[in-house]
C-alpha cells in the first residue's frame, strides 16, 4: 500500500500541469452537476412541500353546491369525517339562538336575543383569529374540542351585561330545524344550562355570511344537549383540509363511503349537507407540472452521467498519450497489468476526489448548495469520471511494450 501511495503521490506532483488541468476540468464539471442536481433537489422539495404551501380544502355542501352553511349535516357523517385519517383541521359548526336566564319557548320574546354557535375549532367563525380572544388563565382554544359547559362570549356583550372572565352564566338555548318540504325554519329548545365564560372575543373583520355569533360553545357540549332533548344532532357547516393531497383519491373514496357525494349542480335544492367540494384543481395542476419537470430531469440523468464518463475518458486518454512509454516501462520492469492500471487509475482517483471536494465547496459558496446536493453531484462526478478513466486506461493494455520501448528516440 505504501508503494502505491508513494507512487501515486509522486505521479500527481510530477505531472502537476496535467493534474491541475484535470482538477480544473473536474471542478467545473462538479459545478455544472450542482446546477443539475440542485434543480432536481429543488423540484423534489417543491413537490414535497406542495401540500403545506397549497392546502387542499374540502367543504361540505348540499348536493347542488348552493349551500355551504345553514345545512343539515347528519351526526354520523360529522363523526366519520372527524375520525377520518385523511382529514385534518376539521371544523364543524352548529347554529343556535339563546338568551340569558331560564325561560320557556313561550317566553322567547324579549329573551331570545342572541346568536350562538357550537364549534370544535375557532375556524368555525370566519375571520376570527386566536389573538382576538382573551382567555381566562389556564384556558385556551382547546376547550372547544371538549364537551365542557364553557363558552367564549363577545367582549362587547360581556361589558353590556357586566360579565367577566370566569363568571358562570345561565343561558337557555334553541336550535334550528329546517323543514325540507316547505323550506320553513323552526326553533326547538335545547334547555337551560349554566356555562362558565372562559374567553372574551373581539372580532376584527368578520368574514361570514350569517350573523356573527355572540357566544361560542364547544360542539360536543351542544351535541350532548341535542341528545338530552332527544333531538337528532345536525351540524350547520363543515370543512377540513386533506391531510395528504398525494392520497386524494383514497380520501375521495373514503368520503363517498361516508355518504359525502361529489357536487352535482343539476340536483334539486336540499338542506341536506351530503356533498363535498374539494378545491384540488390548483394542487393537481401544480403537482403534475412539478412531477413532469422532475421526470424530465431524472430522465436526463443517464445522459448527464454519459457526458461525465466521456469527459473522464477524454481527459485520461489525452493524458496517457504522453505517458504510454511510462506504462510500457512499468510493464517491462515487471509491474503487471493490474498493478500498472492501479497506479495510473489511483492518480486520477485522487485528483477526481479532490476536484469533487473543491467543486462541492465552491458550489456551497456560489450557490449555497445543500449537503445532499453536494454529495450527489460529487459522487456522480467521481464515479462517472472514473468510469471514463478506466475505459481510457484499458486501451493501454493493447499497447505492445516491446514496440513502444524499441523506438530509438
Amino acid at each position, binding site marked *: 500500500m505504501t*508503494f502505491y501511495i*508513494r*507512487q501515486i503521490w*509522486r505521479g500527481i506532483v*510530477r*505531472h502537476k500541469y496535467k493534474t491541475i488541468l484535470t482538477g480544473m476540468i473536474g471542478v467545473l464539471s462538479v459545478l455544472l452537476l450542482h446546477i443539475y442536481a440542485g434543480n432536481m433537489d429543488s423540484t423534489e422539495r417543491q413537490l414535497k412541500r406542495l401540500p403545506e404551501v397549497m392546502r387542499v380544502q374540502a367543504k361540505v355542501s348540499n348536493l347542488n353546491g348552493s349551500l355551504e352553511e345553514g345545512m343539515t349535516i347528519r351526526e354520523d357523517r360529522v363523526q366519520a369525517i372527524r375520525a377520518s385519517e385523511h382529514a385534518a383541521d376539521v371544523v364543524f359548526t352548529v347554529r343556535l339562538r339563546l338568551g340569558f336566564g331560564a325561560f320557556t319557548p313561550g317566553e322567547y320574546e324579549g329573551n331570545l336575543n342572541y346568536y350562538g354557535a357550537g364549534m370544535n375549532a375557532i375556524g368555525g367563525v370566519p375571520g376570527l383569529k386566536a389573538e382576538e380572544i382573551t382567555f381566562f388563565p389556564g384556558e385556551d382554544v382547546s376547550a372547544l374540542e371538549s364537551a365542557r359547559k364553557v363558552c367564549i362570549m363577545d367582549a362587547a356583550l360581556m361589558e353590556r351585561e357586566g360579565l367577566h372572565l370566569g363568571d358562570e352564566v345561565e343561558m337557555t338555548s334553541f336550535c334550528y330545524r329546517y323543514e325540507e318540504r316547505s323550506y320553513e325554519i323552526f326553533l326547538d329548545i335545547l334547555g337551560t344550562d349554566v356555562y362558565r365564560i372562559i374567553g372574551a372575543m373581539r372580532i376584527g373583520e368578520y368574514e361570514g355570511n350569517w350573523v356573527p355569533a355572540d357566544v361560542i360553545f364547544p360542539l360536543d357540549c351542544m351535541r350532548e344537549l341535542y341528545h338530552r332533548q332527544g333531538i337528532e344532532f345536525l351540524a350547520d357547516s363543515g370543512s377540513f383540509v386533506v391531510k395528504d393531497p398525494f392520497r386524494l383519491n383514497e380520501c375521495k373514496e373514503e368520503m363517498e363511503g361516508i355518504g359525502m357525494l361529489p357536487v352535482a349542480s343539476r340536483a334539486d335544492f336540499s338542506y341536506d349537507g351530503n356533498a363535498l367540494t374539494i378545491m384540488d384543481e390548483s394542487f393537481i395542476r401544480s403537482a403534475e407540472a412539478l412531477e413532469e419537470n422532475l421526470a424530465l430531469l431524472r430522465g436526463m440523468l443517464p445522459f448527464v452521467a454519459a457526458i461525465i464518463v466521456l469527459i473522464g475518458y477524454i481527459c485520461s486518454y489525452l493524458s496517457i498519450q504522453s505517458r504510454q*512509454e*511510462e506504462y510500457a*516501462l512499468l*510493464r*517491462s*520492469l*515487471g*509491474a*503487471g*497489468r493490474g*498493478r500498472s492500471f492501479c497506479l495510473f487509475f489511483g492518480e486520477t482517483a485522487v485528483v477526481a476526489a479532490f476536484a469533487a471536494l473543491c467543486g462541492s465547496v465552491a458550489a456551497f459558496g456560489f450557490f449555497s448548495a445543500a449537503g445532499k446536493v453536494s454529495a450527489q453531484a460529487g459522487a456522480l462526478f467521481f464515479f462517472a469520471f472514473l468510469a471514463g478513466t478506466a475505459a481510457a486506461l484499458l486501451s493501454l493494455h493493447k499497447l*505492445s*511494450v*516491446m514496440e513502444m*520501448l*524499441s*523506438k*530509438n*528516440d
Partner: protein
Amino acid sequence: MDKIIEAVNVSYIYQTKYQKTKALSEVSCSFERGKVYAITGKSGSGKSTFLSLLAGLDVPTEGTLSVEGEDMRKMNRDAYRLNRASVIYQAFHLFPLLTVMENVMFPMELQHVPKKEAKARAQEYLAKVGLPETLYKKMPSMISGGEQQRVAIARAIAAGGEILLADEPTGNLDSQNEKVIVELLCKLAHEDNYAVIVVTHNEAVAAAADVVYGMTDGVLSVVRE
C-alpha cells in the same frame, strides 16, 4: 553446463485482421549463465521479437520457451521480469521525472524492498556501473547518454535477476561510451554470472560476445560459438 533459457522450435506469427506474418520460424537455441550472447541481423529480421519473447512480454505461437525447465506459458511472466530478467533499451528509457537514484530504486520498490535498503543497494549498483555520486540526484535529462545507459544497467541489475536482455544498448552512444557499456556487460556476465543477451547491429558489440547468433527472416543460425 549452466543453461538458463532454452528455446525449442519457437515460432511467432503476427496476426492482423487481414494478414499473418511469420516473425520467427522454428528457433531453437539455449542461453547459459556467465556468457554474453549477441543476436545480429538486419532490421525486421525478428531480433526484437525474439527478445520480447525472452523477456516474457509475449509467448511463442508455436514451440516451447523455458526458463530453467519451466514453460514460459505457464509461469507468471510479470514476476519473471520483476525478479529474474531485465531489459535494457537503446533509448535508455529511464523515468524522466525521477532522479537517477529513484530510477535505480524503482524495481526494488516494486519488490517492496524497504526504502533504506533499496537506497543502499542502489548506491552499490550505481557505483558498480561507475557512475559518480554527484549524479545520483540529477534528473536523467541532465546527464549524458552513456551515463543514462549506465543508470539503465544499474536499474536492470538492481532487481537482482540473472538474465540481462539488451536491445541495441549502444545504438545511441559514441564509440567511447559504447566501449564502456560493452565492457560493463561482459563484466556482469563473466564476473557476476549473468546471462547477457544482446540484440545488435554493431560488429564491435558482437565481437565482444562469447556466442553470436545471426537472425535472417526469422530463422536463427549460429555465427560463432
